């Protein structure tokens, strides 16, 4: 058979495409459930971290997450947990960063007077600059941070440790830091509007 002829070329290309795409869809099918589970686990882990719940293994995440109540307030889903006689709330948020959407979870106390924790689920900020919002030192600033007039300020000069309502910005990442400030304050306002009303 002539391997350079048109019919052969067409049939060959068709078979090659078919075989490869078929194999790929098999692999995709086989793993899609796992990918789904990974995503759920990632979200659960973020909620736990934002509520400052300690865990070590993936199984613990599932177990601990089962104790967390998901409550609906005006079409917002809040995650609620009781700890040390206190009720804490967390909400998954999405907002625009410099390059794309920043998804994360913010935890607050019942009266929204302090943040309990912050966790980033995903972001597209520049690695080494804005991307550093996902580093522990940045997120730990939000662990039990009292708010000032119900707001947060991301301060460029740094040195904010121990000051109410202020956290350090990421050096060199003005845009991302400003976006974080906007996103977080908008979140705080929303949380205040639903939680504050019940007090």
């Amino acid at each position, binding site marked *: 058979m002539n391997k350079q002829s048109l019919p052969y070329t067409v049939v060959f290309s068709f078979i090659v495409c078919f075989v490869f795409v078929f194999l790929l869809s098999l692999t995709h099918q086989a793993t899609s459930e796992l990918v789904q589970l990974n995503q759920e686990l990632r979200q659960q882990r973020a909620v736990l971290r934002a509520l400052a719940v300690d865990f070590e293994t993936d199984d613990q995440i599932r177990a601990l997450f089962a104790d967390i109540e998901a409550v609906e307030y005006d079409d917002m889903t809040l995650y609620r947990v009781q700890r040390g006689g206190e009720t804490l709330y967390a909400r998954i948020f999405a907002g625009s960063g410099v*390059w794309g959407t920043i998804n994360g979870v913010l935890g607050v106390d019942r009266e929204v007077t302090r943040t309990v924790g912050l966790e980033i689920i995903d972001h597209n900020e520049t690695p080494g600059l804005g991307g550093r919002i996902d580093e522990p030192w940045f997120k730990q600033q939000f662990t039990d941070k009292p708010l000032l007039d119900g707001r947060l300020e991301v301060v460029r000069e740094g040195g904010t440790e121990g000051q109410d309502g202020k956290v350090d910005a990421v050096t060199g990442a*003005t*845009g991302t830091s400003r976006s974080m400030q906007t996103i977080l304050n908008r979140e705080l306002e929303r949380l205040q509007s639903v939680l504050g009303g019940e007090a």
Partner: protein
Amino acid sequence: MAPDIPLISLFLASIFTSNILLANFLGMCSFIAISKDMNSSNGLGLAVVVVLTFTTAVNWAVLNYVLIPLDLVYLRFIVFIIVIASVVQMLEMIIDRVSQTLYLSLGIFLPLITVNCAILGVSLFMEIRQYTFVQSTVYGLGSGLGWWLAIMALSAIRKKTEKSKVPAGLQGAGLTFITIGFMAMAFIGFTGLLQVQ
């Protein structure tokens, strides 16, 4: 959710502060080889601008109207590459018909572009960041212009350093990389001016 990013800052950032080549390392292969000659750099740079803008727009449409509805997003790498190859081929034919002079100056660079990682890279960034159609096109155009700017600047610098005496091992690629390093630092310096990152 599509991010709400002002078009002007997206445009400027993709040219300067987050230059596709200097910050994301994309499109290096042809960059190093071609930047030896300024005329070729100009031609290739222009071709990249045109191809990037078109392919990002077409890939956006393919992604949002074909791949996502059919749940075939996992095939995007193959599909994007095919779209890029076809767009390049079509542009080559159109340019050939429309203007012979343009074809002579641009046409030879087009086949090189199919395997330029910057083209596929921009499409993949567009997908991950969930840009809207307009954002994608602006991002594609900005990245192309940024690449063009970077290759022109580098080939101008290389022209100056060509005759300089440097240690034998550093000649060629070594010196070029270090030059690109300085350029990357300089471009990061735009950050303060543009206030986008």
